[in-house]
């Protein structure tokens, strides 16, 4: 029982990081219909930028803020330079552009920061774990959870209460109607990319604090796919729940199944799960079905 709780709690905590990245992915998909296969590279870029700031001696919170600003700008630029010209092109062509972007960013990362694993040094979070009875959780997990939660709340509040947040939701619902009210679709797309960059950057930074940072953190970009499929691709709450579920699933499968397998079950489980979900719930758990009044 203790093992189960332990796995569950750390699973939720890591899952909250996935949730953040999944939210960014969903936002782009919802607003502009782009299926973004470069999400993992967005997390890499953000994480390395933050790491650089931190290594230069900038305090961690400020390094994060700096990373958020750079992420925002990179998001706007990416949309402007690469995606805008693709508006109206076939879905497959747009997906291929995001694949191209992923190689492009990966190249930048490898060129600028090398391929060795880098760590946040000195460690940002105290090494001393937190104990609740017999359950022991590393502080880095707890703080990551808190940070991810804060970011999620900020984003959800942004969508719900701000002018641009509402206009983004409106564009996702009915782009033409939003245009008729003077909402610029280009700005909405650009904003979606900017927010995705910021969310991914925070996610990458937090994971980098847990495991160290190297190019394999970009695996997160693949991992969001089962999360968003579970959530239903275009649902923000779905992405959040999906991300957390994938974190838990990974941890439980690692805890209980890895002794029966030669290893790697943790990496495979989310995708096996995604296939099963797709078989039974092709729209995910919260996917939009068009509202039909009866």
């Amino acid at each position, binding site marked *: 029982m203790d093992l189960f709780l332990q796995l569950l709690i750390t699973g939720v905590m890591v899952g909250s990081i996935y949730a953040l990245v999944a939210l960014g992915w969903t936002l782009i998909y919802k607003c502009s219909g782009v299926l973004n296969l470069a999400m993992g590279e967005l997390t890499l870029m953000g994480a390395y930028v933050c790491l650089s700031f931190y290594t230069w001696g900038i305090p961690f919170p400020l390094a994060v803020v700096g990373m958020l600003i750079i992420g925002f700008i990179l998001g706007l630029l990416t949309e402007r330079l690469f995606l805008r010209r693709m508006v*109206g092109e076939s879905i497959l062509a747009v997906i291929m552009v995001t694949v191209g972007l992923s190689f492009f960013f990966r190249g930048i990362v490898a060129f600028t920061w090398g391929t060795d694993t880098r760590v946040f040094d000195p460690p940002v979070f105290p090494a001393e774990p937190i104990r609740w009875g017999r359950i022991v959780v590393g502080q880095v997990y707890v703080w990551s959870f808190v940070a991810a939660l804060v970011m999620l709340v900020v984003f959800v509040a942004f969508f719900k209460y701000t*002018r641009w947040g509402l206009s983004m939701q409106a564009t996702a619902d*009915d782009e033409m109607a939003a245009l*008729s009210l003077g909402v610029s679709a280009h700005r909405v797309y650009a904003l979606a990319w900017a927010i995705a960059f910021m969310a991914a950057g925070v996610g990458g930074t937090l994971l980098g604090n847990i495991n160290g940072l190297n190019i394999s953190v970009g695996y997160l970009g693949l991992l969001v796919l089962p999360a968003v499929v579970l959530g239903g691709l275009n649902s923000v709450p779905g992405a959040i729940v999906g991300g957390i579920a994938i974190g838990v699933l990974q941890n439980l499968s690692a805890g209980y199944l890895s002794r029966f397998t030669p290893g790697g079950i943790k990496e495979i489980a989310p995708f096996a799960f995604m296939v099963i979900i797709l078989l039974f719930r092709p729209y995910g758990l919260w996917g939009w079905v068009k509202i039909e009044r009866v």
Partner: protein
Amino acid sequence: MDERRSALQINNIEVMYHEVILALKGVSLEVPQGGIVGLLGANGAGKSTTLKAISGLLKHEDGEVTEGSIEFLGQRIDKKSAEEIAGLGIVQVIEGRRVFEHLTVEENLRVGAHLRGNGAHLRRGLDAVYHYFPRLKDRRDVQAGYLSGGEQQMTVIGRALMARPQIMLLDEPSMGLAPMLIKEIFEIITRLNREEGISILLVEQNVKLALATAPYAYVLENGRVVMDEPAEKLRENPDIRDFYLGLTDLGARKSFRAVKHYKRRKRWLT
């Protein structure tokens, strides 16, 4: 037509979709400041295309004004983006009650005020919408996808009102609604025109209703204006009586098919 200054003037425009489909072939039209003008015509005549050409939405359907010009208060707008045009105070209510279905009624209205900012404007706008559509106030927290058809039509008109338009382009606001609701909505449209001074270009297939609301109307046919006259004259026009009002000189109502065949022989069908 009217001595008042014109708000909107369309001069002989031609519209192409996808650079090959010619949808409008020389349409001219004028809406006086503070006036209501009707735009009538059968399915596919080009009514919605005309509205989209004005609002700039055309560009997002791969359409283009290839000839002629559109002027709003003397300023040329046919090359402007939809965003700029909305900013000038021209708001189109697109056909088919296109609410943002996952947003609540009030959130829909707030998106309407997108270009007008938050704060005092927003509050005043909401008060005005709830004044004209008290029913929306009761349903403000309901997801718009679950509203009745009439409430959805009210939401999209209210949403356009939030943009503080000088001219509203209404595309078939009566479509698919019960007669009682149609009456209510058209009364409100008339009040918006009278009390708020909003000019209105009204596209309708319900000709009787349109001619009762708009003192002047244009008839579109195959992308051309084939008639434009004051409403009372149009009501007396035998072609309009035949084709749109279903009151033929021969007495019996004709089926749509029969009317269509008959229509082909009419002289105003070039």
